[in-house]
């Protein structure tokens, strides 16, 4: 799907330009657009890898979408690719910012601009909701229904009710994840041993 013509740099430029210019409302609204370009449109990475990049980008400080642009560029074409991706992502809006500062009063109070932003928010909500569903599906597939739901609940309690910082929650889950498969194997061994001695 989409345009796959042109060299790697042209692809990087075009993908990151689009995500930078169409993403209103800062980082979070850009994430679904980046996923669309990187996973669906250009097939640079699969959905799992996108999830990992997003998790790490969330856990590290600094602007999220910019970090992801840098990594995707680097993954394709090393340092030069990272430079091209980041610049095409941020420069159009950064330059517009400098140029438009003179009409700041008009823009920030314009009803039409406010209306346009209000119109796009539900679209962003749908894109984020679809992503949430897809990541949830993946988690259930890998972890099983019961354990998956327990972990969703744990994440909800930590993030929303206890208001623990994203980075800390991700670190906690990663720490457990490091031992997850070892634990699963041990449990299975014990089970089969019990069955052998019982039967």
């Amino acid at each position: 799907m989409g345009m796959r013509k042109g060299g790697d740099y042209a692809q990087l430029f075009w993908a990151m330009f689009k995500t930078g210019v169409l993403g209103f409302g800062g980082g979070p609204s850009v994430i679904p657009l980046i996923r669309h370009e990187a996973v669906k449109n250009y097939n640079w990475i699969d959905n799992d890898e996108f999830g990992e990049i997003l998790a790490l980008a969330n856990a590290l400080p600094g602007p999220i979408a910019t970090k992801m642009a840098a990594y995707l560029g680097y993954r394709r074409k090393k340092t030069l690719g990272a430079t091209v991706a980041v610049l095409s992502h941020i420069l159009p809006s950064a330059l517009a910012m400098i140029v438009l500062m003179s009409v700041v009063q008009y823009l920030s109070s314009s009803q039409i601009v406010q209306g346009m932003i209000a119109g796009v928010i539900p679209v962003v909500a749908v894109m984020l909701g679809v992503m949430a569903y897809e990541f949830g599906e993946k988690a259930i597939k890998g972890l099983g229904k019961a354990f998956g739901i327990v972990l969703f609940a744990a994440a909800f309690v930590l993030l929303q009710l206890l208001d623990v910082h994203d980075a800390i929650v991700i670190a906690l889950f990663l720490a457990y994840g490091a031992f997850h498969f070892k634990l699963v194997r041990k449990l299975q061994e014990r089970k089969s041993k019990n069955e052998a001695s019982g039967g």
Partner: protein
Amino acid sequence: MDWLNLIIGFFLANVLGYGGGPASIPLMYNEIVNHYKWMSNEDFSNILALGNSLPGPIATKIAAFVGFDVLGWPGMILALAATIVPSAAALIVLLKLLHKHRQSLVVKGMSLLVQPVIAMMMLLLTWQMADSSIKSSGIWHFLGIAAVAYWAMERKKIHPAFVVCAAFVYGGLVLSHVI
């Protein structure tokens, strides 16, 4: 010394700002207005308002404008580099390490366990977006736009760029009279 201050100020504001660009805004405010006095409180809120009306990441737009205002084009480049390079380099190094150990069960377990957290973070973000949209445009506009957007993107597989543009047009023509 302005050039060094630009580097230090924007480096600190972004390295300490966990949770992406919006989280860095109060830290940037502290450096720009309180510490280095590059701008008045009023200037900063104007920049923020404009930054929010324009697309693209917010932290880099602020860095670009303040850098330009203080030192011209070189200032813009310095402020942008200090904002982006440290955290982007960290992400690249960490993901490289991860890929080297792709086959290890430890890394596999970690990639699996990150999925529920990401799903929950996305869900909470969806909720926040929906909540703020319902507050500003009303529930029927929200549901209508969301339903059409879902149908267009998920059923008809229309590129999100077109859906976003259509939402802009609708918002500019209709919602500007509502909000």
